[in-house]
């Protein structure tokens, strides 16, 4: 017993000492690495800037560590650049075989290696990586899919819109990342998004409608108006929301109808949209909704009234039938 305890004590003491030594060594190593990075970046900055400008560059012989620092420096620049400088960076990475190397790493066994490669390919700015990144959207790990989505957005890959929306709708790509990516791709994403408004999967239709509201044009309204009759409440709400954002005045009549939807969040979205459209004929229905509907829908209606007719809202709010939603919206309209 005593011997066992003594052995355990010794092992524990050694383990604690090892931890402390590792701590000290790691701190020294990190300090040294940081100094080396700063020195290498300082030494190679001119070449990197020349490369970005498209000037001929004669790189000195770099060891593996220095080459990695140089590549990271260019990747950092590429995130802040667009147009020709970014193409120059892409050419450098393509020419040096870096893109192929990272594309191969998308099949690595370790998750973080695949995710790192997916993220790095976006910073390398080379469109040749797009097919491999689209494949990576189906990776079993979310980190890899998120990194691939981000990179496809940085590469402006409109061909990736459909798979991104599909992954987004399936919840396999985070909403925030997917939404950001499609916004980044911008107008080229629109054509493909329109095609998805009639997708079989309701969540794909809803996501497409929501995104068209963000990047679309007034000409998208007819399609979205049609979706106000969609069997999915989510699709109806997103379409109403999108129509409001797009300022689609021709949708007003249908949106007024949507104030009678059986689902409260569709009614709330319709009320908000009518406020954005400045649709004064909807005022009586909105007053009724603000007075009688459940919290979210009533609040949305009252705030819509504040946009449509602040004076009228103030009068209604102070009537005996005026409720807290109307008074809140009227109060906000008066002071803001």
């Amino acid at each position: 017993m005593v011997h066992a305890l003594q052995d355990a004590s010794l092992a524990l003491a050694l383990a604690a000492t090892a931890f402390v030594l590792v701590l000290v060594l790691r701190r020294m190593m990190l300090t040294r690495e940081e100094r080396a990075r700063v020195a290498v970046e300082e030494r190679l900055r001119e070449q990197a800037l020349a490369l970005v400008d498209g000037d001929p560059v004669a790189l000195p012989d770099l060891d593996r560590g220095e080459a990695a620092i140089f590549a990271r420096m260019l990747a950092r620049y590429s995130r802040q650049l667009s147009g020709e400088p970014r193409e120059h960076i892409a050419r450098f990475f393509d020419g040096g075989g870096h893109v192929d190397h990272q594309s191969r790493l998308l099949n690595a066994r370790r998750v973080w290696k695949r995710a790192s490669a997916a993220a790095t390919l976006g910073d390398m700015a080379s469109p040749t990586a797009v097919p491999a990144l689209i494949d990576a959207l189906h990776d079993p790990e979310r980190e890899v899919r998120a990194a691939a989505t981000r990179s496809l957005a940085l590469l402006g890959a409109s061909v990736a819109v459909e798979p991104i929306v599909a992954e987004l709708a399936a919840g396999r790509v985070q909403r925030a990342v997917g939404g950001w990516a499609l916004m980044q791709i911008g107008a080229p994403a629109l054509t493909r998004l329109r095609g998805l408004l009639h997708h079989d999967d309701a969540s794909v239709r809803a996501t497409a409608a929501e995104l068209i509201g963000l990047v679309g044009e007034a000409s998208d309204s007819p399609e979205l108006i049609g979706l106000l009759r969609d069997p999915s409440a989510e699709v109806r709400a997103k379409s109403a929301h999108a129509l409001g954002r797009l300022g689609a005045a021709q949708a007003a009549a249908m949106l007024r109808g949507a104030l009678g939807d059986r689902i409260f969040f569709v009614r709330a979205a319709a009320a908000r949209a009518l406020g954005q459209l400045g649709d004064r004929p909807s005022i009586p229905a909105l007053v009724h909704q603000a007075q009688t509907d459940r919290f979210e829908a009533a609040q949305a209606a009252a705030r819509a009234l504040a946009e449509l007719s602040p004076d009228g809202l103030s009068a209604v709010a102070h009537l005996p039938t005026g409720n807290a939603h109307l008074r809140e919206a009227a109060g906000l309209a008066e002071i803001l």
Partner: protein
Amino acid sequence: MDLLRDLIELFGICAVAYFAVLNVTYIAFTALAWRSITAHLRGRRFSGVNEALASPLTPPVSVLLPAYNEEAGIAEAVHSLLALRYPEHEVIVVNDGSTDGTVARLAEEFDLVPVGKALRESVDTRTVRGTYVSRREPQLWLIDKENGGKSDALNAGLSAARYPYVCAVDADAILEEDALLRVAKPIIDDPNLVVAAGGIVRIANGCTVERGQVLDVRLPKSRLATFQVIEYFRAFLVGRVGWSRLKSLLIISGAFGLFRRETVEAVGGWRTDTVGEDAELVVRMHRHLRERDEDYRIEFVPDPVCWTEAPESLRALSRQRRRWQRGLAETLWRHRSMLARPRYGALGMVALPYFVLFELVGPIFELASFVLLPAAYLLGMLDTSILVAFAAVAVLLGILLSVAALALEEFSFRRHTHGLEVARMLAYAVLENFGFRQLVDWWRLRGLWDVVRRRKGWGDMRRKGFAALTPLEPVRVDSGQWTVDSGSARDGAVDQSVEHSAEFVRR
């Protein structure tokens, strides 16, 4: 005499078993935490935090700031919350019947004007006296209500919240600029699954704080606060991360936590009759969702995001730990029917039994060891060599676990950049085993005694403050409960977040 010997021998066997199980658990949690944090750090580069900031699809959040007599720091706290990097958020300050100039200070700083706000009233609260909005910052609201305690104030904020997620923040907590974004990340990623998320709370004593931001991370000058820094590493980096990994996180610190509003409303909001309202809410959410067989997650985000002030006097620390122990006892008692029930998964089968055995009654066992082992030695039942070897193993294990937690911090977030401070922390990781831990056990034991006596004392308020460093006068109120963090500090598994700016006496 024989009976005494038998009893001591039985206790000895139990002590060895207890010690073995507890430390194996700690070691397993440390390994789990290393694995989890390493994966988190690797994933952080690809997690899309910046994309979430720029994304129109990131869900908006209502930040709730309950305040009682916070005149000195309220304006700075609100400025800091308004400046959070997040696509869309509102700040709702709930004045819980302050007797100082909290409301006047806010009105002056933010040009508040009265505007009647529609309240959901999904949870009962004390009477709301008025609601105000800022002309300068339209996303800032003030709810002025009668005193009812922190939970009541949070419930009033919940009623006023416009957005689908609410973030509860203590008035004396300092949030990093992207704290909300980071803690919201699990919810942004899985809005249908994640119902709550909490982040790390760290000790700001000694740090340079300016305009509501921690500019330079330093160790506290106070020895007592420095011991707590080590405790917090164990608590948050090891304990919380481990429990979160086992899907059994019991506590989201009252200082900073994000919740799905609908779920908090469904369970009835924060309870006003407990000193451990933060843990109690989380356990109640678990219970509610498990009983409905819903798929859900409550996540812990290990990024350092929230800083707060630790007690620097023995008296204040003692009160805090006794209160935490009481809060833990209340929560475990209230939800005792979940204990060892497979229906509640790892929470019922692992986490709750662990908390009962090692957190709730742990101090009794541990302090008894300090009495009975020497007694056994004096009765000749133990060799000197065994006693010394046993004590050496116990102390070295304690040191190893603290050093491992410290190493985890050093390998991951590395917020203490001054080399000498790391050396100082290492020294404290050793020294805490010789007095500090035993003292904490003693306070926890007294907390249990308070529960037995059904004592409801809250203590006087003494806050040093980050900026002015001017002690406030003790404040005493007769109604309402204010403050509280719950749990115990022993292993890092329970709440280590610091006491609220106020501690009150409720007699």
